[in-house]
């Protein structure tokens, strides 16, 4: 049974130039393919948090061509954080409030990626019915790694509050910590050393004051192209 009060989702991704990047705006199509979001606003932020553009998107669209949107409104801007602020009938996301996207570097021989777009609280904590802590996350890496470089992409969706972030990396049991502060709407890519003292990168943890936009990213060393674009996992389910 759906209520008259629309649900809300603030989800986030990151975009780099040169990629085909199609974002599915609904989780899945209903039998008549007629359900759609009630409203959707998209905002593009540069690494310092500055809003480059904020615009409404036709909520009847099933997919958003993010590459085309960025090319039209913020060409040459480098890495951008993209925030999707949606209102929707709960039947749009019957399972959980997240949606997917397709990502591929144009002309690349590397495989296309398909990923779940991050649902973020972003300083509006009553919007999503998260029942556990989701601001302490982890991710594992293949120890027999093949030379790719990993990093974490982090963005602070809060309106006014900066957030301290701690990133812990693990190599053969040894733990290394880094701390940084992200201003409102700011984002950064934190490179993770592939190896320390002869031990391979095994795991990363991200701790923050509240939920950040967070992805683990893998890049081909030879070209910098993305081979991994994935969400982390919470310790508390």
């Amino acid at each position, binding site marked *: 049974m759906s209520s008259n009060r629309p649900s809300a989702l603030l989800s986030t991704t990151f975009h780099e130039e040169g990629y085909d990047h199609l974002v599915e705006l609904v989780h899945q199509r209903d039998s008549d393919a007629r359900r759609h979001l009630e409203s959707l606003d998209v905002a593009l932020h540069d690494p310092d948090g500055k809003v480059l553009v904020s615009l409404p998107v036709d909520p009847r669209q099933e997919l958003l061509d993010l590459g085309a949107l960025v090319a039209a409104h913020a060409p040459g801007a480098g890495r951008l954080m993209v925030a999707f602020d949606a209102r929707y009938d709960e039947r749009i996301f019957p399972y959980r409030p997240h949606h997917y996207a397709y990502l591929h570097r144009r002309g690349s021989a590397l495989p296309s990626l398909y990923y779940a777009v991050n649902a973020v609280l972003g300083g509006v904590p009553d919007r999503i019915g998260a029942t556990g802590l989701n601001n302490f996350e982890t991710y594992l890496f293949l120890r027999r790694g093949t030379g790719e470089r990993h990093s974490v992409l982090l963005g602070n969706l809060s309106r006014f509050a900066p957030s301290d972030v701690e990133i812990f990396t693990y190599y053969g049991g040894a733990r290394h910590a880094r701390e940084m502060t992200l201003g409102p709407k700011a984002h950064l890519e934190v490179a993770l050393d592939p190896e320390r003292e002869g031990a391979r990168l095994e795991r990363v943890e991200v701790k923050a004051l509240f939920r950040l936009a967070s992805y683990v990213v893998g890049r081909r060393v030879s070209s910098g192209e993305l*081979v991994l674009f994935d969400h982390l996992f919470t310790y508390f389910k």
Partner: protein
Amino acid sequence: MANPLRGLARRLLGVRRTPTYYLPWLTRPDLQCVLLLNNVEARFKAGYTQGPFPVSACQYDADGAVVRRYEATLADNLDTAEVVLDAGAGGCGFVTVDTRRIHSDLYVTLSDGESYTATHGRGEFVEHYPARTRALVRGLGALLAVAGRTIPAFTRDQYVYDGADSRSHLLLMNLSNVPNRIRIVGGGEGHAAAARLVTLPPMGSRLVDVASLGPRGTGALSVRRIRLTGNAWFNLYVVGAGARDLDGPLSLMHVK
């Protein structure tokens, strides 16, 4: 079908659901497929903090036959076991993992020697149909198949992408002990929807090439809207490919 009706139908048919964690696998001559077994997400969970944690996995091939069983032991919940999967018939399938002692998402990676892609598995279930229901499903399914149809027990919708230098395919997995006829409907933009019936053996899998679903649209990257209907529980992973399509490096990704 509404959930209460589904539950009633399952009881009448004697269908049992066994909770099962599974991951997809793919092998190609130049791709290595590795499982990452771990218990790290249970690090702070009561009852899951004392190791060691024995873990076993069973790899099914595309025909639903067991390729191999794997055993590993995690010393504690910070330990990870990397299990290289064998090549099996059809080059694809899924692996079930006994997760009674572990409570964590598990990963599967595809490596071409220069980099790897990764995704995680799913904690769902496998459906077990009793003999009389299997016979019923087989008989009715064979009749409907003559007309290119299937028993519409489960439906999934999925977007797939088809471009000049990239595309997404579908790895279908039959999570039941009955043959699963899956009707796939979808066409390229501007084309009439094409339909195809794929039969998966019990616990079997098939890699569906999007090009087999009809001509692609005219844009540089066209989107196909696919509807899949099966007579038993199934799921799918999206398989990403680049310019060399299925002969090149690949990625796997879970869906809902």
